[in-house]
């Protein structure tokens, strides 16, 4: 009897979870299915959280960064990261974290200047401190920063660079450029790709051949010299904003070709689908077929391709800045920071200067994983194979029956 009861309970549980999984299916649109499929992809889920955090960081950058772009202090050049502490030298626990003051001394062997903590001076970390003036979200003029310590204390979470600038602040502020250039660049190439790829796929014949050969040519340029040539075309003394704009254009100019190819091949593949022929036979006009049947058919693949193009652009921007072709100090991006850290001396003596690299790696990986998840989700129908053939009504009856059984028990 007990085994029977257990079997019944097990059966009921199965049925319930199936029902929960099956119900939203019936009238779920493509995007809903895609979203559900994406949620099942663990790495993509984690990546989306990471990316959300990164973009929040970029959005609130001047507020989160304790220092502004122009701040530097010659006293604290090449200082190592400040340690945030809860327990002081006497072993007392402080609820509010604090940092020690820094004093410089000379290494007796190498005679190099180095910083050591001074346990006699204790600076608690405070929230919402006043500091450098900045414009928050482009609207409010304010000087409140998320955290900081009172003068003369200093907090350098990631240490400082050779000019005594806080590296943490620069990483945070640099993310604004490094994370938005690819987004805008990809948007531009998205539009270009959709348009040119669409024309290529729709027109076919000679137009298609010309466009495809042009794409071949653009893609066959080695990117590095191309960037250099294009960067050389940028006027030498331009403002940060314009520079930003130029870089984006350069990136987009190369990237659109890949997207155009995705659009073209999908266009051709979908045109041969039976449901497109069905629409044609039903008398639906050409333009309408394109916008009702073809574009929605490949837009999800295009989104995937675009997402997977972003990491390439992040690396591209980083590479350009690294080569000194892009943004220049004091304006900053992750590429600029890495360029500043490129001497072997820095790597050996001041390894914290490589922290921006970690950010680049994390963001690139996150975009790749997220793109992978999207790609798997882009065709939600293929994953349903087991459920696809099932008649829902029929299934519902099975469930109801097992439910009824349980109730009478």
């Amino acid at each position, binding site marked *: 009897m007990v085994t029977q009861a257990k079997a019944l309970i097990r059966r009921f549980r199965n049925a319930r979870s199936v029902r929960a999984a099956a119900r939203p299916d019936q009238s779920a649109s493509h995007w809903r299915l895609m979203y559900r499929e994406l949620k099942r992809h663990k790495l993509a889920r984690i990546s989306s959280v990471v990316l959300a955090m990164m973009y929040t960081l970029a959005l609130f950058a001047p507020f989160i960064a304790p220092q502004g772009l122009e701040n530097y202090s010659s006293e604290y050049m090449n200082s190592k990261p400040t340690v945030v502490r809860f327990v002081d030298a006497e072993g007392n626990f402080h609820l509010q974290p604090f940092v020690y003051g820094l004093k410089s001394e000379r290494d007796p062997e190498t005679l190099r200047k180095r910083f050591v903590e001074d346990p006699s001076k204790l600076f608690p970390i405070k929230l919402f401190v006043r500091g450098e003036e900045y414009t928050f979200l482009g609207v409010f003029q304010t000087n409140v920063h998320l955290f900081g310590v009172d003068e003369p204390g200093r907090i350098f979470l990631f240490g400082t660079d050779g000019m005594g600038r806080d590296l943490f602040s620069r990483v945070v502020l640099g993310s604004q450029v490094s994370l938005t250039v690819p987004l805008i660049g990809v948007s531009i190439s998205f539009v270009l790709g959709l348009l040119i790829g669409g024309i290529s796929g729709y027109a076919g014949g000679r137009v298609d051949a010309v466009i495809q050969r042009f794409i071949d040519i653009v893609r066959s340029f080695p990117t590095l010299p191309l960037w250099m040539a294009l960067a050389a075309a940028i006027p030498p003394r331009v403002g940060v904003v314009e520079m930003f704009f130029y870089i984006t254009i350069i990136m987009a100019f190369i990237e659109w070709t890949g997207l155009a190819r995705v659009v073209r091949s999908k266009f051709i593949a979908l045109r041969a689908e039976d449901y497109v022929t069905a629409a044609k036979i039903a008398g*639906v006009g050409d333009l309408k077929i394109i916008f009702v049947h073809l574009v929605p058919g490949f837009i999800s693949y295009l989104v995937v391709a675009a997402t997977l193009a972003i990491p390439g652009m992040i690396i591209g921007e980083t590479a350009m800045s690294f080569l000194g072709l892009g943004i220049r100090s004091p304006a900053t991006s992750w590429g600029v920071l890495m360029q500043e850290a490129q001497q072997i001396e820095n790597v050996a003596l001041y390894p914290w200067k490589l922290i921006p690299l970690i950010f680049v790696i994390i963001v690139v990986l996150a975009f790749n994983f997220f793109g992978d998840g999207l790609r798997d989700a882009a065709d939600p*129908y293929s994953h349903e194979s087991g459920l696809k053939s099932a*008649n829902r009504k029929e299934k519902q009856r099975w469930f109801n029956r097992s439910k009824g059984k349980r109730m009478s028990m």
Partner: protein
Amino acid sequence: MADILLQVDQLSKQYPGARKSSPIHAVSDVSFQVNRGEVFSLVGESGCGKTTLGRCIARGLSASSGRVLYTAEGGETIDFLSADNTAFRRIRKDIQLIFQDPYSSLNPRMTVFDIISEPLRANFKLTRRELEERVTDVAEKTGLNPAYLRRYPHAFSGGQRQRIGIARALVTEPKLVICDEAVSALDVSIQAQIINLLKDLQQQLGMTYIFISHDLSVVEHISDRVAVMYLGRIVELAPKEALFVRPLHPYTESLLSAVPIPDPDGRRERILLEGEVPNPAHPPSGCPFHPRCRFRTERCAAEVPALREISKGRLAACHYAAELDLKGAPLEALERKEEVLL
């Protein structure tokens, strides 16, 4: 004289061949008539051009040459393939097509309502209310629950999807429906449901079908007249009973003899064809069937036989059609069988 609804006249469709090779003749010079209210079947093996022919008639593909003369309600006859825009707008809705694959023929991103109503929206200016009325009406006729119209195709099984495809084809109240292997992809028990549905709808709505299939048992079940195709040509055309009882073309004979019959007692001598269907890019000289034909002569290799009338209503493209005595399907054995079964 029978009331002719559609007259296909010398229809040809060529695909450009690969580099330097000659074009592939998927359909060559096909002519036939379809009478109002009948089921006209096109039978043949894969690659014989039957699907291409069906799609050309419905203008899903553009034919290379030939005419499809359609006689509209008022008695006027228009070439469906070359009709000018205004005329074509009027008759477009009269010829519709049902597809073989219930999966690829429905756009997965549209709701069932949008799929079924698409031909209506393209051909008529209807209010939302009228649209809903007509879609609900056709859904009920085809055995779909109207409550499910807001769902997406992926929520349906193959058989139900095929019903959606049928509803889409019938929503404009066409005069002629081309069923392109409409039941071939379905399971036996579902296939029977759909065949019955198609038959019922035809009687109810007075439609004419061009039924394209490779399955001779299904064809025998549903059609009035049958045309057998081989390598892009019609090789035999006859009323169903005549064709099944006494075929005039050797190819028809071997087709009939190859059909597996669900009766272990009915095992019989087979006429096994040698070889396979030739590549349509390099068709044989003379009669396209001659390399596989057991009656071939030198004349067959040299001369293309024309499709000619052998007796009233019976056409065959074989030089010796009048002389050969060919075997039909073993009918008597089956009839006996039926009594036992039912």
